[in-house]
């Protein structure tokens, strides 16, 4: 949703710059802005107004007393969070799993879109595209039971391992392999969908560049490396920077449906932890404090990423 708004906004800005000489707000610029209106209203109602509720993070919030009756406690919940014995382990798990998903997910999606773009038979291309998109639309609740069935000790994956003479691995109960399972299944689920954006970016590259490179004798590899990837770079940077904001949320519904106390060591992330403490333990203020902190860190990372890309590539995201 936000990404969509952002893209429309960029279009609007570009149009405006083109038309600057004519009038302050050109007709096309204005219609683009109009297109943003429903989205903006949505954003204000569902994202900005609820921000007032963040005051909970600084209160000892009791539902019946409401925002005005609850006692203010300042930064107490933040202090409490950092003295929890497990907080660093949980942070490590969260960032580790999230980074794994971002990096591997991006690389695979880019590679996949480049390869898919090479396919010339339209029917075949569309079929593959549909097949790899599909998992994106399945909920983790459903997928989790499929994954449990495949990866448990008696599951098909272990039967294959045994067939090759290897030892059985309790993927869901072994804290050493659990993060790998989480990252792997998430990448599998999402790479098809994520590649849509990259595929669009590739299509937007001027075919003339490819032809010129081919005439100059560049191999396929060289063309990918020197034409396709640089052409995709703005979108790659945008997507990477956007996903940095999610670095502290490693995917609640996926992990919640797959983890167990056996893998808390590496699998308990901020979301699942806050869920157990916050909602089930009914500590709303604490939950809000963690959420707020996560958003702040996400924002700082996004701004940093923007600054860095501007410095090193001379392109900025916004």
């Amino acid at each position, binding site marked *: 949703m936000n990404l969509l708004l952002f893209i429309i906004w960029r279009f609007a800005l570009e149009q405006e710059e083109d038309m600057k000489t004519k009038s302050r707000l050109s007709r096309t610029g204005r219609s683009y802005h109009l297109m943003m209106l429903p989205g903006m209203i949505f954003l204000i109602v569902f994202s900005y107004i609820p921000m007032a509720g963040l005051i909970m993070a600084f209160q000892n919030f*009791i*539902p*019946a*007393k*409401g925002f005005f009756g609850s006692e203010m406690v300042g930064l107490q919940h933040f202090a*409490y969070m950092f003295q*929890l*014995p*497990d907080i660093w382990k949980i942070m490590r798990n969260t960032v580790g799993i999230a980074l794994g998903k971002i990096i591997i997910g991006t690389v695979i999606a880019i590679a996949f879109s480049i390869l898919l773009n090479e396919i010339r038979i339209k029917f075949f291309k569309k079929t593959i595209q549909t097949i790899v998109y599909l998992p994106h639309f399945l909920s983790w609740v459903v997928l989790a039971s499929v994954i*449990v069935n495949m990866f*448990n*000790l*008696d599951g098909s994956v272990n039967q294959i391992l045994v067939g090759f003479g290897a030892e059985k691995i*309790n993927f*869901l*109960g072994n804290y050493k392999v659990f993060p790998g399972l989480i990252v792997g299944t998430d990448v599998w689920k999402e790479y098809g969908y994520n590649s849509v954006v990259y595929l669009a970016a590739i299509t937007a590259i001027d075919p003339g560049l490819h032809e010129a490179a081919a005439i100059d004798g560049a191999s396929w590899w060289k063309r990918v490396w020197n034409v396709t990837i640089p052409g995709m770079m703005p979108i790659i940077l945008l997507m990477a920077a956007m996903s940095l904001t999610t670095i502290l949320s490693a995917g609640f519904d996926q992990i919640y449906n797959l*983890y*167990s*106390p*056996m893998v*808390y*060591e590496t699998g*308990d992330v901020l979301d699942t932890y806050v869920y*157990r*403490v916050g*909602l*089930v*333990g*009914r*500590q*709303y203020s604490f939950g809000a404090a963690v959420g707020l902190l996560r958003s702040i860190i996400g924002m700082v990372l996004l701004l940093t990423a923007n600054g860095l890309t501007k410095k090193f590539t001379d392109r900025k995201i916004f």
Partner: protein
Amino acid sequence: MKKRGIGKRLLSILLAGCLMVSLTACSSQNDQDDKGKDTAKNDGTESRPEKIEVTFGRMTIPNGGLPEGDTVEDNAYTRWVEDILNIDIKDAFEANMMDGSYDRQVSLALSSGDLPDIMLVSSRETLKELADNDMIEDLTGVWDQYATDTLKGIINSYGDAALDKVTFDGKMMGIPATTPDTGPTQVWVRSDWMQELGIKVDEDQNKAISLDELKMIAKEFKDKNPGKAENPVGMAFVPNLSDDGIYTMSAISAAFGAYPRTWLESDGQVTYGSLQPQTKDTLSLAAEWYKEGIIDPQLGTRTWDDITSLLVNGQLGITFGMWHVSDWLLNNVREADKNANFEVYGIEDANGKVNAKHVNPVGFIAVVRKGFEHPEIAVQISNMFYDSLRYSPESFANYPEVVKYVEVGGIGVARPMNMDIEPATSLLDNLSDIQKGVNGEIKAEEARTKESQDIIVNIKAYLADPANASTTDWAKYHSRMKGIGLLQALTESGTINYVSPVFPLTTSTMQTAKVNLDKLEDETFLRIVTGALPADSGFQDFVSQWNKQGGEQIIKEIQDQIK
């Protein structure tokens, strides 16, 4: 994992509730006969002139047993209540009580301040929070005025224990469900398999087996695979090793005198069961069994549902639970395998005693939203289900569909308030009625409750032809004659050694630290059993961590609370 933790705890407390519609000799036994002849005025179910809408928070369970076409919101029980009390039942929310969803819904209702008119809460903490925030009605007046003598007698059969739990500043803020002691956690063993393999246990015939015997059965079952299943399993447990009841290790730990996740008190000194050396002994033994392959190699990732399927698939022949598991879990095993039969045992400690905890007599509590104009409806519904439905079959004789529900039994979630108010001695009282009925000492109609009367019929049918009996008859026979039968045998021989846990209100440190401590405990115990941590140093470490991370403080707070 908290969600399972809560589910399981609910289970032990409640679950019990949902299926054990039982009954007993209670104070009003004598007025019972006159009841039907009285006008509707006296049975506490006065109608009201104008139909009003009442909203409820409702519980569901997967496979709740509702007949085709009936829903939680609209079924024989709700239609009966709607008709008698002239109300219109609407569900504000419905949620699964087994996995903690119901509790979450209650939490959400509480935080939004938007309560249904009547709902159940599962803990005194929630009740207190509601009372402190002035969100619920004081029921003292309507209880005195509307509750029947029978109902009051049932609650009083616990002395003050039941009412005290719902009373704050002298005001009765909720109607307590009451749960009689169910005795020790029972071991249910496939007796058809034991026969097939020629396994003999319990030579002294005291209905209690030793840990060694348990281990032997599990090993035989696993090695010889009488269920002819792929991947047979010796024993399987849910991941929260400290939990009580169904699919847990509580029977094994009790044999060591260990009561994990339980607050105990002796001479004014509060202790936490999980920290005691007995708990360590339990874990060491379990670790040994795990290593030998007798305990499920997938311990820790097997969920409740997984274990049920192990049983149904014939991979597992030993399970742990309460007397009523045959009615709603093991009946699935019989459905799948007509030859399946179970024998029930307690596990004895080194002195030949079977240890058990007294249960918290109060489980669910029904509360009424502050400002609801007819708080008496909650009391009237209680009268209908916990008095009329049990003791006065004539009161619902005009509602054939209700009669049918009662006969089938076990459709607890259909009730607007899915709880039970049971007299303290109801289990054994009912069993003795049933035994007499089955032996022909009394006629079925002479049993004190409608439910017992029906069960006598079931059991007679089962005994007439065990091999071809229906699953319902099979289940009733097992739950009563074997499940409660074990409790009766152990009680009569004086084999049960009861301990009385402390049931404290949540203290301030508990609120901030308990989730963490529970996580530490669940994680450590699993790792000890699966061999990832050495039992001795791992446990020692756990104890000091636990104390350091707020546990010591919690114990102090509980001590102050019970002073």
